[in-house]
């Protein structure tokens, strides 16, 4: 016989909020560096060329900030506020030698990411040699990553806006295998729940919504005439290892991720470790 919860589950499962297409555009771009002004201008030109073919940056006003323009995080924030920019482009460990050691983002980038609402494009350090050979050559392959790919309209819109025409947009959702196994271990000790049945159903359920959302993204982007291919990567695994593997396997040119977390001052979930570890390609941090 039927239970109330049984049918509520069926109807909740049938409820898929579709992707809402609203591609952003950046009318102005602030390139923050710790370089001399002429080097900063050259770096800004390189970033402009990298993003030039994308719909996000269709001829924006580019303003290059040299290292002399700020000497503290407070001054940098004032400068950003005054610029009223739509996109900040910068790199790790400004005004520091720590970029030689791949363990941190540096205080300026840390503060920028948490204290401004403007998306920040984190680029490989201009002095470093760890950038991938395809980095900054063009945004042909862009990947949006999240551990909960559902109603992530802003994330997908930014990622789509950063794909150059004819390129590929990867939408990646990695469900933590470690967390899943831990819950399953608890379930395996509850006599009234069939462990194998629970494993099968939960695996299927956890990935189903993400797949459905990717499908609506592909459909709406196609309807909107956005010239790109949508591919999905929805699977179980270890977040960091999987994303590193994806970046290398699919030669990702740009990674897009969420940074802010309403419930904490610290950076959202995986954003910090990804930003520290994935230094070889540009990252857009929302």
């Amino acid at each position, binding site marked *: *016989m*039927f239970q*109330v919860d049984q049918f509520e589950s069926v109807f909740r499962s049938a409820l898929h909020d*579709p992707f809402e297409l609203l591609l952003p555009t950046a009318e102005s771009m602030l390139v923050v560096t710790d370089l001399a002004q002429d080097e900063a201008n050259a770096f800004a030109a390189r970033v402009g060329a990298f993003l030039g073919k994308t719909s996000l940056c269709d001829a924006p006003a580019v303003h290059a900030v040299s290292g002399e323009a700020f000497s503290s995080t407070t001054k940098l924030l004032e400068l950003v506020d005054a610029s009223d920019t739509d996109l900040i482009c910068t790199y790790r460990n400004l005004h520091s030698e720590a970029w030689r050691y791949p363990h941190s983002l540096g205080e300026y980038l840390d503060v920028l990411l948490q204290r401004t609402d403007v998306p920040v494009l984190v680029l490989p350090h201009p002095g470093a040699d760890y950038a991938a050979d395809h980095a900054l050559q063009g945004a042909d392959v862009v990947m949006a990553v999240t551990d909960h790919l559902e109603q992530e309209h802003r994330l997908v819109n930014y990622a789509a806006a950063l794909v150059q025409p004819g390129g590929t947009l990867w939408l990646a959702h990695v469900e933590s295998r470690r967390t899943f196994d831990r819950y399953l271990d608890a379930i395996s000790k509850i006599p009234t729940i069939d462990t194998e049945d629970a494993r099968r159903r939960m695996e299927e359920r956890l990935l189903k919504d993400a797949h459905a959302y990717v499908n609506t993204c592909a459909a709406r982007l196609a309807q909107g005439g956005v010239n790109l291919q949508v591919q999905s990567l929805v699977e179980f695994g270890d977040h960091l290892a999987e994303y590193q593997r994806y970046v290398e396997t699919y030669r990702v040119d740009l990674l897009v991720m969420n940074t802010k977390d309403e419930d904490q001052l610290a950076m959202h979930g995986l954003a910090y470790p990804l930003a520290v570890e994935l230094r070889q390609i540009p990252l857009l941090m929302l």
Partner: protein
Amino acid sequence: MFLQAKVTWGALALLGSAGLAQAEVHAEAQHVAAEPSAAITYCFAVLLVAMILSLALEEKIHAKKSLIVALYAVVALIAGSAMGLMPFGSVTLPGGHLIEMPVYIPAVDWGVIAIILGSSIFVDVTSRSGLFTWIAVRLTKASGGDPRKLLWYYGLMTVVFSAVLNNVTAMIIVGSLTGVSLGKLGRENKLLAFLLVEGLLTNIGGLLTLISSVPNIIIGNAASISFVQFFITASPYVAVATVATILLGARLFDIRALATAEERAEAQTLVEAFDENDGIESPFFFKFATVMLLLFILTIAMTSALPVISDLGMGFVALAFATAMLIRYKSDVDQFYKAIDWDLIIFFMSLFVVINVMEHARVLGLIGQGIGLLIGDGESSMGTGVLLLTAAFFSSVTDNIPLAAMLAKILSASGTPADSPLWWSVVFGANLGGNITPIGSASTLVAVTLIHKYKLPLSFAGFVGKALPYAALQLGLAVIYVLVFVA
């Protein structure tokens, strides 16, 4: 005492010479059951009243109704046997073959059990195809999220599902969809209204066909009313009562249509988020289930006219269709057996045993005399109307199934003809009485459970207060309908 006289169960019943539903089952009595004294009859009547009260207090005593009635069945059988009321002996099968059978086995109406068992498995398997959720989601999208349209669509869906499935399943499907969809539309403030109206409509839909509710099955079997005859007689009332209930609900709860184009566009976008195909695991099985459901309704409707099938009965049809549907899950059929509502099945079996003992103890005869005083010779309009309202009253405070089973026995035993409006008084009264209180029917109880699940305040008295205008309207319409159109 050990005579080889062939007697009928009906003759052994203490209602004079009238035959009973199980008259075709013969017992080779090894002793003649004793004629109970008035004192014994009253003792058993007290036992019956105690059982009905226990059922009414099911929620308070935290016991399932199957256990409650089974305990009374045990006590009644022991007491009936000790007092020599029960006719022990072999049972003669139609071919003349004698078999030993415990006295409580032929007491059960296995035709009713087969219908309930077969239908519930059939509906359970069919629901796995995603058919019912597909219909429900399509209707939600067709409403465009407009609350007024949604009330009409959900109301009509409740009636149709109650008629085709059963009241409880219909309430669960439509009620759970209501919770999810009104939440999505941000109309939680109308949830109480929707759930209440839907709960009340389940008992209207339960009147539509012979298999829509258990009282219908019991009365239909007892009075030999065919599926088609039942549908033709009941459907005009169901149509009128449905429209009246929805209109009253929209008026009393101020459920209005969306006023502006912006509101309509926003609501449309929100309901478009539902994917009707989400629950469909296999398109083939979806189509198969649709065809089978239509065939099931058609076969049930034509059972009495189909050669061979008419002999096997509706219970066979239900079980046969359930078996055919189970082929889809041939390696997992046990999960459907586990999901059978054994509480309901055992409740019925025990109830039939209790009623059988009460029959032998002349309690049903006693109640029959009381009803006789109420309805007179059964020919007067007053009597028909009084029986309907009395049945509704008793159905509102206790389970309508024992009521229907008892009244069916009593009307059968008194030789009530199949075309008598008294049968319809019991059908309408037993079904509609469930709309007066939250414990009056299983489906209104589900509605109240859903209301409480969504943390909406509604006490017992609160339910009665809100439901009374609807129940009064429906019962008023029913009395007029039975007296003017059925009589």
